[in-house]
């Protein structure tokens, strides 16, 4: 559990560094701290975990895997932030600190063993994000994003909390173990009180808000567009991964025997999410907004693992989330560079990128192919796992609809590739800083590696 402690203490150190104007030390200290946290997490791999802190948390392999992937994604994003935050404001230490506070909440979310911890984790994460979304104080869009996110987020947390309370009312406990036993003690549907069912439904609503699944997705595009791009990257990768980890953990631990009740609900949500995300993404002119909607559709694919709950769900979500996260980090990283140079985030600003900077065009192509799910990239392996698990549960029509959506998504992902390679623009040099080269190159290589040899990641569960 040292991971959580390190990630909680680290922001305080950073705030002190900021106080003493040690700006240069911020990035190295953050990265070293995160690497230490990662090391402690990995060291606990396969140690037979027992619930700790009076049964509040359980740091099992599931938590370790998801902690690791969220920490790694955060490190990549922190690397990209070099020189980025300085342009927005003078209080750089606060950015790092708040991102890390949010990460602390995420670590709690992926290792909760008690519904109160789920709630507290989500709140720690969300409150930090509300601040991050509005951190460009003088920017109208950023303020709008923060306000929208805060209102919607507070609203959805209310649903979640209400659901938790109802479950408590029915079972008399917040502990996942007790709730599971209670469910197993009531094998007949008629034994389970409507209070419990209502609780499950409200929790679904609350969590769908957090992961941005339709029809609870309305906040996503505006918040993603208005927030600073790196914060958007953080929200759409790390936060989304954590949301799904928490979702999966709760449902596989407690509500799996009741799947007859909630699967139809989630099935509808999944299908609606896929179509809304994909079809709306088709009509976007801004690359950033397209990524926002495509992130909604990826939430739909990730929901497959929960709809078709099974032994492999954890590894499917992990693989898919990893693939999606690293590809998104490439996309957002490239977007930041293009935006800086062109002053716009429309598709047109990517025109002729292949000539301006072949490296950037190549890694972005790999990212787009991965997001579209083309073989030999990590995104394909993720989709393959999702389709397999859904077919295993005989959800044939769901998979057919998902295939239709995968085809739709080709249109907007390839628009970027077409713009970069096949359209011309004035030839102006676009310089990629070294840090960006490292992060983007690393992410592209990982994308291909997982695509070619998926056992790298999927053998962990």
């Amino acid at each position, binding site marked *: 559990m040292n991971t959580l402690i390190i990630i909680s203490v680290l922001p305080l150190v950073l705030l002190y560094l900021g106080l003493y104007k040690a700006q240069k030390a911020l990035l190295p200290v953050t990265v070293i701290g995160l690497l230490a946290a990662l090391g402690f997490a990995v060291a606990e791999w396969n140690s037979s975990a027992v619930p700790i802190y009076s049964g509040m948390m359980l740091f099992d392999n599931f938590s370790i895997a998801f902690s690791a992937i969220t920490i790694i994604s955060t490190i990549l994003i922190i690397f990209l932030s070099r020189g980025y935050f300085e342009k927005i404001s003078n209080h750089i230490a606060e950015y790092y600190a708040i991102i890390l506070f949010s990460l602390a909440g995420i670590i709690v979310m992926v290792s909760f063993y008690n519904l109160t911890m789920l709630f507290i984790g989500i709140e720690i994460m969300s409150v930090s994000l509300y601040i991050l979304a509005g951190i460009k104080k003088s920017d109208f869009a950023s303020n709008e994003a923060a306000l929208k996110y805060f209102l919607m987020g507070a609203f959805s947390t209310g649903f979640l909390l209400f659901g938790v309370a109802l479950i408590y009312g029915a079972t008399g406990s917040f502990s996942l173990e007790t709730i599971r036993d209670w469910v197993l003690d009531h094998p007949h549907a008629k034994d389970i009180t409507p209070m419990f069912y209502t609780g499950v439904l409200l929790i679904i609503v609350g969590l769908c808000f957090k992961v941005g699944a339709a029809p609870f997705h309305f906040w996503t595009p505006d918040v993603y567009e208005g927030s600073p791009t790196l914060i958007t990257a953080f929200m759409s990768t790390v936060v989304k991964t954590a949301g799904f980890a928490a979702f999966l953990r709760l449902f596989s631990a407690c509500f799996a025997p009741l799947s007859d009740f909630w699967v139809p609900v989630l099935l509808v949500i999944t299908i609606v999410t896929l179509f809304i995300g994909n079809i709306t993404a088709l009509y976007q002119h801004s690359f950033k907004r397209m990524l926002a909607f495509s992130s909604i559709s990826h939430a739909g694919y990730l929901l497959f693992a929960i709809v078709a709950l099974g032994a492999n769900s954890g590894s499917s979500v992990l693989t898919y989330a990893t693939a999606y996260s690293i590809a998104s980090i490439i996309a957002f990283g490239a977007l930041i560079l293009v935006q800086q140079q062109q002053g716009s985030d429309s598709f047109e600003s990517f025109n002729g990128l292949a000539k301006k900077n072949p490296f950037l065009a190549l890694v972005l192509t790999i990212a787009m192919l991965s997001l579209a799910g083309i073989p030999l990239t990590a995104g394909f392996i993720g989709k393959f796992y999702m389709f397999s698990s859904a077919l295993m549960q005989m959800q044939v029509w769901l*998979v057919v609809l998902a295939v239709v959506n995968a085809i739709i998504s080709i249109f907007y992902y*390839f628009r970027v590739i*077409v713009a970069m*390679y096949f359209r011309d623009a004035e030839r102006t040099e676009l310089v990629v800083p070294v840090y960006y080269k490292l992060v983007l190159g690393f992410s592209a290589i990982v994308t291909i590696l997982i695509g070619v040899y998926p056992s790298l990641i999927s053998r962990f569960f």
Partner: protein
Amino acid sequence: MTVSILIFLPVIAALAVLLFKNDAAKHAALTFSVAELAVALFFLSKFVPNASVQFGIDAPWIPKFGIYFSAGIDGISMMMVLLTTILVPLIILTTYKHQYKNAGAFYALVLFMQAGLLLVFTALDGFLFYVGWEAALIPIYFICSLWGGENRIKVTLKFFIYTFSGSLFMLLGIIYLYLQTPAKTFDIFEFYKLGLDAHHQAFVFWAFFLAFAIKMPLFPLHTWQPDTYTEAPSAGTMLLAGIMLKMGIYGVIRWMIPNAPLGFFDWESMCIMLAVIGIGYASIIAFKQNDGKRLVAYSSIAHVGLIAAGIFVWTIEGLQGAMIQMLSHGINVVGMFFIWDIISRRLGTRSISDLGGIAKTAPKFAIAFLIIVLGTVALPLTNGFIGEFLLLSSVFQWNVWMVSAAGLTMIFGAVYMLRMYKTVMHGPTNELTVTFTDISGSETLVLSIICALIIIMGVYPQPILHISEASVTHLFNVVYPKFPQLK
């Protein structure tokens, strides 16, 4: 010696060629592809023409999901490997008079595509097959859209989305079969053993059929093809028409019918009808074409329709005819597209009505063109004849009216091909065609090789038929007893 050498050599070659520029890239790509041909010929010399799978490799890839890197060569695969390895160096040679910008990337993509194609033709694992299928698609998409004609962006995206949609459904079919196997494996021979009922097989059939029918392409899913062929750079067109569409035919033989014989049987008449309609439809449209490249594209749909019809009847003659016809069609169509490439590069037009009398200024070119036309219209003693004969005799066993329809349109095909030849090569020269210079250098080399293959295969096809005979018979015997009633 395992088949992995054959698959990975082009990948390494592709990476190596990336390092070269301009002419050096051409030479490097040609050297590598000839080396690949040498490897294939070496395999051929060691190949024992029986039904067994040879030079096999079986290495764990994602063992948790029962996915193995499992590939090998039997007679059917051997034919496809020969087709690919013979055509790729020829196609690279046809580009010798072109100056592609970023030549290194161009040839790297060609070689990478070759690796994907060879993976498709040798894979014995469903997952591997799918990966190869897509690995061949991505490079050709970039070849066509980076080096293609004016409308390329729209046309190639249409092509990509068409084929990608089909293949995603195929992926569903493969995963479905995988979930049915008791041992949870993607092994094709385990798929063959499954005894699903007709209802479930129908699902598998449709999943595969969509992918393969789009790739071949079969009427009415062919609409991507003429545009793509016209817009693609000529090497891209040759890769598409010469090799890539055979992926669809190969898929039908190896994956669709043996995996879902009952499902296929219920829809067999529809398949044959579509194939025959496609022959007639494409022939009629080809008749009206004035653009030479488009004419060849439509005639290619007609030829593939006949191959498809011959397979769908599922007789040994039909399958053997398909095997040799795939090889012949590949050679002929590459020759045909090269002819039009030469004409359009010299004269800047592909419009048939603007041409005439080229034979007077370019006698060598005229001879080569004539031989290729004769091969395409399947004159006896050319390579097209034996294949079409076997295919027609197979369709004959199904229905005499079908074979008359198919046969008549083949005659139709001879008419428009010869008419094209006559208009372009004979008659009076005009001020455009009088400047036409005869072929030289690499052009002569390519056309002589193609003409030699057309005549040798036409006069003595037996050794080639012999390669695939045992495997085809074996596959036929595995599948035929599964059909519900004997025809």
